[in-house]
Every structure is written in structure tokens, then in C-alpha cells.
């Protein structure tokens, strides 16, 4: 059987090019089966000659997606296309979303929307608090990427595990940590989900199986692999979602983990949030072969390219991966194409991309897109929207007040939690 990428590996097929995101795939994937096979064969022959690969892409890819040498930015899906194509894609995404809406009950749809809006408003408030000096250190906002965490986490059980990177406020909220505890953590207060010791980049909740924000790029990938290993070892059917940015794909930790996950058949779902920039370095300047989903073929792991602006597409792709993980203990790699509307962190001058590029992506704002789909389907109207908006704003205001009023950790907290089993040197009493 061919894998979904027609590369010749034995990775199982998830969707065979049915996902709407197919339209956004890098051009090498947008081929008929036969041309893809020819392409693969030729690619093998010429595998050591990169320029040839580029040349071949031109021969086989649809002209609309091709990137001419004169084009300024080749970093974003939309950016590669004339505006006409953007509106075309928007239409396709909406159509697909409308189609998917039929498979999800209304209550869930509205809850998904509420969560996306909550994360959006939460992050806006966090930005405000940061600029007022109430939040310190680094603060990486999730605005623009909400559909990924919320779509994916909506497809798992509460006892499943989530690990993510330092851009984690949205994941924490989606996993069920209260905005109060997330905001208080940002404020460095004892009411925070890590009691003020972790901050924006290190949120944890043991009871909710939220296993952290990790701040070394890619560091959470081996950890998540280990959590999945433990599920299999203990014989539970829990699955692990591991979120990371596309820049983490260049780290050895990613490749080492995928290799072990498939070798030992571990129930881990690797969700690459490809927002197309590693801090200020575009994907184009950082990755020699940019088709991240296809990298899974190197480990014969099933993979899929998903539209990260469509919360239902992310939910659907994750649900399929979860089923494989739960039933067969098999890993999956999802490349979810998204875009962050804000800077890398609050201190990002943004000099590496244009306003116009951001605005183009904002035309596919995942929150607005989902609202318009729900409205067109008659699931939500302006009045209901206003109600959701109001309750979300109240929740965020409450979080802000909670964070402000929560006490700072006492000075004695400086020395706690270094060791679980602190040892007084020279103590002859046996260890517990």
C-alpha cells in the first residue's frame, strides 16, 4: 500500500488527499497519483541533487501554487499566492467547514467557538497586562493559532495527556485549566497553576494531565514519547498529544522521538503547529525540505497535512489519529498549517515580515471563520454571539482580578520543590 504521500514508504494511510488542506499543500503533493509516482521515482534517482527537485516541482505542480524566483516571500501558504487564490481558499475552507459542521452536535460546536474566543480574549488581556508590566519575562501569545489547540484537545478524553511548548496559554485553557489559574501563573502568583514558579512557559496541572509547557525548542517531544511509552507499559488506553512548532522539527529530539515512537509503537500524536516562523526566521530560511508531514515517511509513521485555521479539520484529523493511538498504540504526525498574528513574543519588533502578509493571513482568522460558518449554518446568530462574547469577557476580567488579588508566593517557597525527597546530608536514618 502506498502512503498518503506516495513516497513509497509503508506508513498507513489516514486520509488520502481528502482534507481541505490539500489545497494548501506544498506543490510536490498536489499531483495526480501517477505523476506523484513518477515524481517519486525520479526524486529517488536524483535524491542527492536538490536543484533537480525544484525543477521537477515546476513541471508537476499546478501553476497557481508555484513560486517564481521573483516573488518576495515564499514563507506562507497564502503569501505564495495572488489574492485571488486567497479568496478561493477561503471559500474552500468555509465549504469544508460547513460540511464538517454536520458531523458535530450543536452544543460542541458552540463550546468550541466559546473556547476559541476565550483564548483570543485571554491573550489580548495578557498582552495588555504585559505592556502594563504586570507580566514579566517572555510571553508568547497564541492569537491566530486557536483552532489548533482547541480543535485537537476537543478530540481527546480528559484522562489523555497533553504536552506542549512555551506558547501554551491556549493549550492550558483548552485542557481545562481555569483562566484564573493561567493568568495568575502569568502574574507569578501563588494561585497560578504552577504556583508562580513556572510562569508563561511552564504551566502544569497534574489533575488534568496537562504535563507542561516546555521552553527548550523540541524538549517536550521526547518527554511526550515517554508519557506514551508509560501508557503502553501500564496497559492503559490513554493517548498523548504533543504540540510543537515547526522550528522544533529541525531539532534532533523530533527525529529521535519519531523513530522510537514507531519502533516501539507508542500512542503519541505529534502535532506540528506550523506557523511558518521560528521566532524571526521563516521556514524558507530554516528548512531544506519543507513538507513536514512527509518527513514522517522516513519513520513510516502515518501523517497528515491539516488546515490549522479550521478548528473542525484539526478536530477531525486528531480524532482519527487518536483512534489509531488508542486502539493500536500507533503514533501519528499531523502538520497543522497555521499562522501567528502577533509577534514571536511580546518583545518581537516584527521586522522580518510585512503588515500586508499578516493581514492576508488574518483574512482566514480561525475565530472569525468559524463564526461565519456557524452563522451561515444557522447555529449561532449575532445575539448568541454577543452573549458568548459577554460571558468570555467576564471570564477574562475575572481571571485578571483573580491574578491581581492572588498573593505572591511566600519567600519560603524559594526553597521548596527542589527535591521530592530532600536529604539532610550526614543523616544516618535510612531513606524512605
Amino acid at each position: 500500500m502506498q502512503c498518503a504521500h506516495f513516497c513509497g514508504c509503508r506508513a498507513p494511510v489516514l486520509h488520502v488527499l481528502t482534507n481541505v488542506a490539500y489545497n494548501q499543500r506544498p506543490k510536490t503533493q498536489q499531483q495526480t497519483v501517477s505523476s506523484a509516482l513518477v515524481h517519486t521515482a525520479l526524486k529517488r534517482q536524483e535524491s542527492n541533487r536538490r536543484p533537480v527537485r525544484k525543477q521537477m516541482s515546476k513541471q508537476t505542480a499546478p501553476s497557481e501554487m508555484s513560486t517564481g524566483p521573483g516573488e518576495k516571500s515564499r514563507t506562507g501558504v497564502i503569501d505564495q499566492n495572488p489574492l485571488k487564490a486567497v479568496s478561493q481558499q477561503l471559500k474552500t475552507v468555509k465549504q469544508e467547514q460547513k460540511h464538517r459542521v454536520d458531523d458535530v452536535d450543536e452544543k460542541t460546536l458552540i463550546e468550541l467557538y466559546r473556547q476559541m474566543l476565550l483564548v483570543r480574549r485571554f491573550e489580548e488581556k495578557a498582552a495588555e497586562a504585559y505592556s502594563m508590566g504586570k507580566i514579566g519575562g517572555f510571553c508568547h501569545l497564541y492569537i491566530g493559532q486557536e483552532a489548533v489547540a482547541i480543535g485537537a484537545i476537543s478530540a481527546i478524553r480528559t484522562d489523555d495527556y497533553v504536552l506542549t511548548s512555551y506558547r501554551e496559554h491556549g493549550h492550558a485553557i483548552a485542557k481545562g485549566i481555569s483562566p484564573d489559574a493561567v493568568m495568575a501563573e502569568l502574574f507569578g502568583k501563588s494561585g497560578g497553576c504552577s504556583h508562580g514558579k513556572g510562569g508563561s512557559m511552564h504551566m502544569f496541572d497534574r489533575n488534568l494531565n496537562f504535563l507542561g509547557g516546555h521552553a527548550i525548542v523540541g524538549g517536550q517531544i521526547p518527554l511526550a514519547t515517554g508519557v506514551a511509552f508509560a501508557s503502553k507499559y501500564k496497559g492503559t488506553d490513554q493517548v498523548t498529544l504533543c504540540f510543537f512548532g515547526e522550528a522544533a522539527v529541525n531539532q534532533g529530539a523530533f527525529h529521535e522521538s519519531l523513530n522510537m515512537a514507531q519502533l516501539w509503537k507508542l500512542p503519541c500524536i505529534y502535532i506540528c503547529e506550523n506557523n511558518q516562523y521560528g521566532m524571526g526566521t521563516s521556514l524558507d530560511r530554516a528548512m531544506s525540505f519543507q513538507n513536514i508531514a512527509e518527513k514522517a515517511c522516513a519513520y513510516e509513521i502515518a501523517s497528515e497535512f491539516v488546515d490549522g485555521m479550521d478548528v473542525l479539520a484539526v478536530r477531525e484529523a486528531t480524532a482519527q489519529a487518536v483512534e489509531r493511538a488508542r486502539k493500536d498504540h500507533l503514533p501519528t504526525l499531523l502538520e497543522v498549517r497555521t499562522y501567528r498574528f502577533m509577534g514571536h513574543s511580546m518583545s518581537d519588533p516584527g521586522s522580518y515580515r510585512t503588515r500586508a502578509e499578516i493581514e492576508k493571513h488574518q483574512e482566514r482568522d480561525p475565530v472569525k471563520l468559524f463564526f461565519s460558518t456557524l452563522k451561515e449554518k444557522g447555529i449561532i446568530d449575532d445575539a448568541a454571539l454577543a452573549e458568548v462574547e459577554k460571558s468570555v469577557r467576564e471570564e477574562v476580567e475575572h481571571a485578571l482580578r483573580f491574578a491581581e488579588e492572588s498573593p505572591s508566593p511566600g519567600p519560603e517557597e524559594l526553597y521548596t520543590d527542589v527535591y521530592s525527597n530532600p536529604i539532610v546530608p550526614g543523616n544516618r536514618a535510612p531513606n524512605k
Partner: protein
Amino acid sequence: MAVITMREALNQALREEMLRDQNVFLMGEEVAEYQGAYKVTKGLLEALGPKRVIDTPITELGFAGLGVGAAMVGLRPIIEFMTFNFSILATDQIINSAAKMLYMSGGQFKIPIVFRGPGGSAFQVSSQHSQAMESWFAYFPGLKVVMPSTPADAKGLLKTSIRDDDPVIFIEQERMYGNKGDVPEDPEFTIPLGLADVKREGTDATIVARSLMVPVALKAAEQLEKQGISCEVIDPRTIRPLDIDTIVESVKKTNRVVVAEESHPFCGVAAEISMEIMERAFDYLDAPVKRVSGVDVPMPYAKNLEALAIPDVDQLVAAVREVSYI
């Protein structure tokens, strides 16, 4: 009691603790089918099965991190580095994940894991395979660092390390695997972490030695005895937490101290011990603390050069005579 090698003592500890607790598993390069690159894990695959004794690809960062992740959710991994030289690849997961997880999660996620394997100098394997790493790991709060020097200590300390709820770096000296000694057979025999052992009592000078330097110090003490100098030899056994009290107690008695180590001197553990002695027992010292360390160069291959790079009995004898102003 039975006389066995350090290799066998470690094997006993692993076997006993894995039989005792189903959540303990052992993972590393060549630990299972090959029976261990140094045969420390010999027979464990047969005894415990492939679910619990797991051969890994050569992917140190990956399986170290996998171990930490498994420890987050209740397993108690033993991660073997074929040698600690390769732990360098895994330091991100050891330091940034294992050491800090409990703290940065506000006490929610303890990491009961042992990273173990041979360290220090080996026989003529040159620079990349012959180095002492303890000062790297001992630097970080959140980690415990253990270095046994006898088969009994190796067994007792490894068993305690596996039962401990914190990440433990357990460094076995590669040259000492074949050393023999009496080892208790009681499966409940353990040795507390953070407890130094007086390997020889004396009155005139203290030698603080760990790992490979302990037998060297004991030989030096024998020679010095013949020269009329009575040496106390103290093995901290655990580098972090360090049982400085036992060392200081000895220094207060002997008033002279030499700290021996095979590692490089700069930013080494002996530097830390010397400073702690200065802070706590300055008024008791009759001579400045003397360090005897491995030389400050990468380990050479040539046999004669290698021998010059590691402290020997003569150097220790000379150092004790120096602090004794003889």
C-alpha cells in the same frame, strides 16, 4: 556476605529492585540482548523480559527524555548510558527536564529516575571516552549525584537511588567494574544517599577521595603509615547532597586535608569541597587545603601519557607530606 565484583553487585541491585517494583524498567544501548556493554545488565533480559529490559537505538537525547516523560506519569526508569561520555548528548533532558520539572511545576511532577553507567577514565580510549562528568551534574539543584567506590557501596547506593523519588546521576567507575569486595546478600540492604563513609580512620591528615581515587588513597595511607603519618580516608559517596559534616569533623581532628579526584581541577568537585572546608573549618586548618586532580588536558591515548594524567599513589603521598610540612 559474599565476595563479588562491583559489576556483579550492580547487577544484583538492578535485579532485586526490578523484582521488587514492577514500575522499574531498564533502558539503554545494548542492555538487553548484548547483556550490557560492560555486562552489568547480564541476565536481566532473561529474568525480567523484553518489556522491562529494553535495547534502544543510539539516541541518547531521545531515550533520556523518554525516561523523564515516563517518570512524570509514575514509572521509575533506569536509563543506562553505555558510558557517561554519551550523556553529554542527553544533558538537555537531564538538566532542563529532569532536574527542574518538580520546581517549575510547583511541586506537581516528581521525577524518580536513575541515569547510570560507567564514567571517569577508562583504559586507553582517549579523549572522548575517558572523562569525569560529576561536576557538570553536581552543579544543578534538583539532581543527586552518586559515585560508589566499593562493590557493597555500589549495591547499597544503587538500590537506594532506584527507590529515591528524585533524579539520580549514578556514576560507576569504568576501571573498577572488576574490583572485588564483600557484599551483603540481604535484599533490603541499602545505603542512604548523602552519607560519607570513613574508609580508614587516622589522626594526622585527612584524604577526601571518591570513586577511583579511594583505593589510591588507601594505598597512599598505607605507605604514609609506614612513614609515621596516620591518614583518615573519607569517601563522600554522594557528591550531591554532600556530607560535608563528616569531612569537617575529620578535618577538625587532623587539621590537614588533601582532596583527591581524577577529574579536571578547574571548577571540579574538589574545588567545591576545599571551599566548604575553608568556610566551615578555617580555624582548624594547620595548612592550606591541597588538591590532587587529574591534569588539565583532554585524556591522551598513549599509555605513558594516560598514566601521567591520572593521580597516583606517589602524588597523594607527596601531597599529604606537603600539608604535613614534611
